[in-house]
């Protein structure tokens, strides 16, 4: 079922994540089957597919969040980020996660002040200098288009913000450790249309500096945001290509059925 040309990356991009023959299982239940794909730097790549198809699981493999699950294991294959297999024994997960940031489906700001939320990533690295922290907090909040909304209440609890603001705060928090890659697991699923539009706008801006991989249930969102789209079904990568091509002219009948709303 895997696509014929594994390193298929259509026009204009340098691959930063390379996945080869990747098999992943929870205990005895295999969740991902023989996945091959390249993800381009400084582009937005969207994963679409029905619930339970393994796209979130796959995303969590990129920063090894699946390590938290006891029974999760890689059966075969590798994921290379900047040509380093991240499942090598000598890879420090902490360094990897600084390099590959993540934004979760449910916004999870810490119950601390807005300032402390952004500064968290730096503080755990031992940065104590107030001026440096101040600067990073402002930069990240500006990058997340949140600065003007919250600059007067940085010391207030992040939980007093609206849902959309909280999610953008989480993005800003992820930016603070200067990742190269940003993984987003359905970042807009709990947001209203206006907040969603703001986050999408933000993602569009961030594309200039970051490689973004986004899992989404909204096909319109994938179509609007992404440069490339991958369609997953039952743990397999069915089709991967330029977003326009996937949506206008899908090669696989299953992809076509899904994007035209006949199942999923």
């Amino acid at each position, binding site marked *: 079922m895997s696509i014929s040309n594994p390193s298929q990356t259509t026009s204009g991009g340098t691959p930063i994540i390379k996945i080869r023959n990747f098999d992943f299982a929870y205990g005895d239940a295999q969740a991902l089957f023989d996945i091959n794909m390249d993800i381009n730097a400084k582009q937005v790549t969207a994963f679409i597919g029905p619930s339970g198809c393994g796209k979130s699981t796959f995303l969590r493999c990129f920063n090894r969040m699946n390590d*938290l699950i006891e029974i999760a294991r890689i059966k075969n294959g590798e994921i290379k980020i900047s040509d380093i297999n991240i499942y090598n024994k000598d890879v420090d997960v902490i360094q990897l996660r600084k390099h590959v940031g993540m934004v*979760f489906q449910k916004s999870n700001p810490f119950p601390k002040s807005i300032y402390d939320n952004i500064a968290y990533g730096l503080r755990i690295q031992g940065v104590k200098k107030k001026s440096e922290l101040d600067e990073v907090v402002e930069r990240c909040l500006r990058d997340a288009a949140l600065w003007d909304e919250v600059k007067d209440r940085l010391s207030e609890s992040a939980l007093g913000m609206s849902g959309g603001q909280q999610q953008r705060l989480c993005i800003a928090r992820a930016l603070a450790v200067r990742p190269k890659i940003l993984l987003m697991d359905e970042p807009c699923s709990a947001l209203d249309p206006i907040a969603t539009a703001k986050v999408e706008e933000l993602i569009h801006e961030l594309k200039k500096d970051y490689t973004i991989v986004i899992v989404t249930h909204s096909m319109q969102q994938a179509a609007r945001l992404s440069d490339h789209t991958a369609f997953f079904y039952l743990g397999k990568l069915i089709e991967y290509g330029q977003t326009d091509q996937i949506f206008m002219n899908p090669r696989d009948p299953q992809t076509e059925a899904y994007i035209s709303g006949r199942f999923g």
Partner: protein
Amino acid sequence: MSATNEQHTFTKRPSRKAAIEAAISGAFRIATYIVILCAGYIFLNIAYNGSKAVLIPKAPFINIEFLTAKPQTLHVFEPKEIDAELKSAKAQIVSLQTKQRNLGSNETTAADELEQQVAALQQEIKALDLQRKDGRLMYGDDAYRALDREPSSELYAYSNYAYSGGGIGPAIVGTCLLVLGSIAIALSLGILCAIFLSEYSTPGPTLQLIRLSILNLSGVPSIVFGLFGFGMFVLYFDWGVSMIAGWFTLAIMALPVIIAASEESMRAIPKGFREGSLALGASKWTTIRTNVLPYALPGILTSSIMGVARVAGETAPIMFTAAYALRDQLPWQGLEQKTDFFFQGVMALPYHIYVVSSKIPQNEYTRNMQYGAAFVFLIIVGFFALSSIVLRIKIRKKYKW
């Protein structure tokens, strides 16, 4: 008027179901009232009788001596003359009452007369009792020894009651030390254990077994813990009957509750906080330290302090390990070495209450000590509970989600 009597779709109609419903809610209500009544009676009884010992009518209104002095034997001298009069009056009443009982049912005038006589005698007894209270002499040990000469045995009848004079100072100090020490030990051990169980351990049957056995520990009778502490700390470690043996015994007894509560508090922290922190490149311990423990702390502290306060009320575990029935010196007095502080027995309120309520007679001279000690102990336990609640509110304000 007819409009109000008219039956409509939603009119209340008596039915079997409604009656059962009312009966059930009534039963719940009555059960609750019974519990409140019992608890209220116990508390008020102790508070009322205890306050006689603890409070005094003059400023500063608190009986400082009772709270600070060491327990002493109470030496009582009763005026013999009044005592004799009291006895004869009581005897008269008894004989009159027997007479009254033997009267036939138609001799009402005679019965009334007898009743009046009894009432008069009872008045007299009351007056005599007041006189007796004024006339009697009571001394603690120190005052008794300081007497130039004893009151003459012709005028006074002498009796003495162990532990009933003086105060409960050493017992209060001992209890506070026992509680603080066991909190320190139980909290540190318990939280470390709970962190491991909730954050680091691999789920599976082994973990369930460990959890189950920890929980089962809390069902072990306290006397068994006492014997364990005696065998382990007092005899095997050769610490003797000492404060440190009591600390460890109490701590081990409180551990199951603390571990279970701490684990519960930590598992109640949303997974998102952990993931969010880890995804930013925090190590596991950093995540726990910054994003799990602070939020779980209110729950951990509250239940732990409550757990220790409950355990500290037990007599059995300290009976063999830490408590002395009587000790003249406070723990910091007369130490040869600094480390001796830990290896000395102390007085403790629960044990003291046990001693004064089971080893000495119950009468008006001993009651003060019995209820007073219980009342003070209630207040101390209440204070610990209150402080844990205040602590929780304070920390909880800082972290809310």
